C-alpha cells in the first residue's frame, strides 16, 4: 500500500489514540493525573467502614490507616519493632519509657505531644468506647507523661509483645490527636486526622478512597501528590486493571496467576511468606485426636509440599511449627522430622497409638476452593497412608468458629492471619490459658517457656525461648501445622520505592514512593 493510503489498522490505531487523548484526561480524572497521582488499587476487598484505628478490624481499613497515622513504633522486615513517632525506647523492668520526636504535626496543624499518646491509649482502654483492639493494650496498668515528649508505659509485669502492639500495623494503637477526636466525636472514623504522610481527600464507600500528600509530614513532604485507591472487589479484576494501565499497584494478587505474571516483563511481582499460619486444629477432648501418638501419625502421613502446590499453586512455604519465617527472631525453620512426610514412621506412630487400626473422624472446613481443598488433600493422604476413615465436612466459616469455641468438633482446618508477634502465635494458640487454644492443649513446660518469653525484653533471648517452646510443643502435636502462604503485590515498572513487608503492608510505603 502506498504511503499516503490509510489502512484499516492505522485507522483503528489512530482512532484509539484519539479516544485515549481526548477522553482520558477528562473522564479518568482521578485515575490519571500524570506523574503526581499514584493509582494504588486495593484488591480483593471493597468494604471500608471506618478509618478510626481504634474501631478498625478489616485489612483494607488498615491499608488506608497506615498512610494516615503513625504508631510509636513500626515493624522492620524481620517484624522487629523500631521507633517511629518515638525517637528512642528504654526498657526497665515493667516500664517502657518513650522519648517522642519533637515537631511532629497532625494534619490539622497541631503538634503531637505525650498527651495525645496518653489520650490514644486511654481511649482504647475505655470500656465505653468498646474498641475491638483493646486487647493489644489491656496489659497496661499506668500511662505516665512526665513532660510533653516523654511517655512511660507501666505493665503489671514486663510484657515484651507490647512494643510490637504499639507499631503502625494491624494494632489500632496509631496515635490520634486529642483535639481532633474531641472535635469530630462519633464522626472521627469518617474524618480521620493523623500524623501520617497523607491525609484523607475523598472517600466513596465501596468505590474508592483518595489521599492528599501532607506537606507538614515529619519525614518530609511526600513526592507523590495524590494517592487514588479504587476498591477492587475481584482480585482478577485488579490484575486486568494493572495490565490495562488503569492502576499502578495492587495490594494482593490471585495465587494461581503468579507464575504467569512473573513471566510478564512489563510488571514487577513482589512476594514473600506472609504473617499467617494454617493448620489442622485437633480436639484433644475427643477421640481419636485425644492421643498424641495418633496426632503425630497424622502429621507425618501427608506431604506438605504437595499441599503447597495443590492449594497455593506453589505460593507459600511448608510449616513445621506455628511461627512464620518472617518473624525472624523466633522462626524455628521447617525441617522437623515430625512434620515431614514419612509413611513408614507415620504407620509406626499409628501402631503405638490407642487407635492402631485407624479411626473415623470428621474434618470441618468451609468455602469453595482454598479451605475446602486443604481439607480434601489432608484427608485423602491420611486415609491413604494410615487407613483411617476421615471425611471432610464443608460448612460456613462462622459455624466452624462457633464449633471451635464450644468444643463441638473432632478436627478442623483452621488458621490465623494478621498476628504480628511471636507471642500471639504461641501464647494465644497453645498456652493452656491462650484465648485461641480451643482444643484443650496443656503442657506445663510449654506454658513456662511462653510466660518467660513474655517477660524477656532482649529480642534475641526471647526468640530462643519461642524456638524451645515450639520444639517442645511439636512433640505433642497439639495442632498439625500445614503452611504459610505468600503475600503479593503487583506493580508497573514506573512505581519506585515500594517495600513489601510480611504483614502485607501498604499505605505506610506511600511516603517513600515516587513515579518515574
Amino acid at each position, binding site marked *: 500500500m502506498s504511503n499516503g493510503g490509510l489502512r484499516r489498522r492505522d485507522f483503528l490505531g489512530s482512532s484509539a489514540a484519539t479516544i485515549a487523548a481526548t477522553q482520558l484526561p477528562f473522564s479518568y480524572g482521578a485515575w490519571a493525573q500524570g506523574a503526581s497521582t499514584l493509582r494504588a488499587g486495593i484488591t480483593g476487598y471493597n468494604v471500608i467502614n471506618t478509618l478510626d484505628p481504634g474501631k478498625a478490624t478489616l485489612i483494607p481499613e488498615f491499608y488506608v490507616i497506615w498512610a494516615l497515622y503513625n504508631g510509636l513504633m513500626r515493624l522492620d522486615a524481620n517484624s522487629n519493632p523500631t521507633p517511629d513517632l518515638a525517637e528512642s525506647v528504654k526498657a526497665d523492668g515493667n516500664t517502657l519509657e518513650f522519648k517522642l520526636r519533637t515537631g511532629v504535626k497532625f494534619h490539622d496543624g497541631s503538634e503531637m505531644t505525650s498527651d495525645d499518646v496518653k489520650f490514644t491509649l486511654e481511649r482504647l482502654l475505655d470500656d465505653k468506647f468498646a474498641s*475491638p483492639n483493646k486487647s493489644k493494650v489491656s496489659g497496661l496498668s499506668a500511662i505516665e507523661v512526665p513532660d510533653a515528649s516523654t511517655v512511660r508505659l507501666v505493665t503489671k509485669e514486663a510484657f515484651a509483645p507490647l512494643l510490637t502492639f504499639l507499631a503502625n500495623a494491624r494494632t489500632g494503637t496509631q496515635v490520634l490527636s486529642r483535639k481532633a477526636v474531641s472535635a469530630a466525636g462519633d464522626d472521627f472514623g469518617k474524618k480521620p486526622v493523623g500524623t501520617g504522610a497523607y491525609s484523607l481527600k475523598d472517600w466513596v464507600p465501596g468505590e474508592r478512597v483518595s489521599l492528599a500528600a501532607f506537606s507538614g509530614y515529619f519525614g518530609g513532604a511526600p513526592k507523590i501528590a495524590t494517592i487514588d485507591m479504587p476498591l477492587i472487589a475481584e482480585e482478577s479484576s485488579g490484575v486486568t486493571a494493572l495490565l490495562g494501565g488503569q492502576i499502578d499497584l495492587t495490594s494482593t494478587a490471585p495465587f494461581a496467576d503468579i507464575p504467569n505474571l512473573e513471566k510478564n516483563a512489563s510488571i514487577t511481582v513482589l512476594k514473600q511468606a506472609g504473617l499467617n499460619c494454617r493448620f489442622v486444629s485437633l480436639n484433644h477432648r475427643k477421640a481419636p485426636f485425644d492421643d498424641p501418638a495418633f496426632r503425630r501419625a497424622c502429621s507425618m502421613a501427608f506431604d506438605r509440599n504437595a499441599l503447597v502446590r495443590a492449594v497455593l499453586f506453589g505460593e507459600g512455604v511448608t510449616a513445621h511449627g506455628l511461627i512464620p519465617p518472617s518473624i525472624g527472631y523466633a522462626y524455628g525453620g521447617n525441617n522437623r522430622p515430625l512434620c515431614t512426610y514419612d509413611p513408614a514412621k507415620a504407620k509406626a506412630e499409628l501402631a503405638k497409638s490407642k487407635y492402631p487400626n485407624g479411626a473415623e473422624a470428621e474434618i470441618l472446613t468451609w468455602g469453595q476452593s482454598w479451605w475446602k481443598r486443604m481439607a480434601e488433600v489432608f484427608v485423602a493422604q491420611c486415609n491413604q497412608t494410615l487407613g483411617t476413615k476421615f471425611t471432610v465436612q464443608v460448612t460456613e466459616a462462622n459455624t466452624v468458629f462457633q464449633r471451635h469455641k464450644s468444643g463441638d468438633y473432632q478436627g478442623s482446618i483452621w488458621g490465623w492471619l494478621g498476628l504480628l508477634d511471636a507471642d500471639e502465635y504461641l501464647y494465644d494458640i497453645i498456652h493452656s490459658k491462650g484465648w485461641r487454644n480451643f482444643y484443650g492443649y496443656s503442657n506445663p513446660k510449654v506454658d513456662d517457656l511462653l510466660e518467660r518469653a513474655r517477660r524477656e525484653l532482649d529480642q534475641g533471648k526471647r526468640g530462643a525461648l519461642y524456638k524451645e517452646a515450639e520444639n517442645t510443643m511439636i512433640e505433642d502435636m497439639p495442632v498439625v501445622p500445614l503452611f504459610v502462604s505468600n503475600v503479593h503485590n503487583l506493580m508497573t515498572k514506573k512505581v519506585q520505592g515500594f517495600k513489601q513487608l510480611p504483614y502485607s503492608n501498604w499505605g505506610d510505603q506511600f511516603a517513600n514512593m515516587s513515579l518515574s
Partner: protein
Amino acid sequence: MVWVRYVGGRLLALVLTVLVGSVVVFLVMKAAPGDPAVAALGESARPELVAAFRAKHNLDVPWALQYGRWLSGIARGDFGLSLTVASDRPIAGLIAARLPNTIFIGVMALLIAVILSLIAGTIAALRRGKLADTIATSLAAFGISMPDFWLSYVLILVFALGLGLFPAYGFIAPAQSFTGALYSGFLPALAVSAPLAAVFARTLRTSLLEAGNKDYVVAARSFGFHPAYVFVHWIFRNALIPYITIIGLQIRYILGGVVVIERIFGISGVGSLMVDGAFARDYPVVQACAVVFLVIVLSVNLVVDVVCSLLDPKRAR
C-alpha cells in the same frame, strides 16, 4: 376509560406484587445463615456490644415488627442504615449514588442487544436457509450458551489488553462525563447484551417467518404491493409484538448480568452493592437492592405491556 382502567389495574397489581415480593425477600434474608452482629463487630465481640448493635438496628424485636418498621421506612424512602458494607451510612444514599450507573449499563446493554438483534434477526429471516441465516443463527446459539463472565474476560483480553481500545477496568459515572460513561461502559454493556441479543434475534427471526406466511401477507403480495412495503407494514409490525414481549421478559437477565459484570469491571452499581451486602451479611442492603430490582423489573414489564397493547389494541380489553 378502558385505558385508565387497564393501566390503573396494572399499577395496583404492581404495588401488590412488590408487597408480596418484599415479604419474601425479607423472610429469605432472615433465614440466611450467619449473624449480622458477628459479621459487623467481629468474632471476639462482647455480648453487651452485640446486644447494643441489635437494638440499634431493630434486630431485637419479633420479625413481624421488624418487617413493619422496615416497610414503613421504605414508604418514606428510608431503607435504614448499612450494617457492614458502609456501616452507619443511609442505604437510600448508597442506592441513589449507584442506581444511575446500573441503569446506564442496563439501558446501554438493551440498546446494543436491540440493534444487533434487529439487524441479525431481519437478515436471517429474509435470507432464510442461506449462508447469512446460518451465520446469524449459529452466532445466536453461541451467544445464548456463553456465560457472561467468560465473555467479559474475553472482551477484556481482546479489546482492552490486546488492542488497547478500551479500559480494562473502571467506569466513569454518566453524571461525571456522559461520553466517558459511553466509552468505559461499552465492554461491560456488550458483555451483558450478548446473550440477550441472541435471544431477541432468534425470536425476531421466528416471528418474522411466521408472520410472512399469514394469509393477509399472501393477499397483500397478490395485490402487487412492493415486497419492502409488505414487509414493513404487515410482516414487521406484527412480528414486533412477540419481540417486544420477549424484551420485557428478558429484562431480569440484564439485571442478573449486571450483578456479575459490575464486579468484573469495577462499576459502582446496585448489583455490586447487592453482592457485597450478601458477602458481608448486610441484610438491609440486600433487601433494599432486591426491592429496587423488583420494582425495576415490574415497571419495565408494565411499560412493555402498555407498548404491546398500543401495537395490538385487542390486548387492553
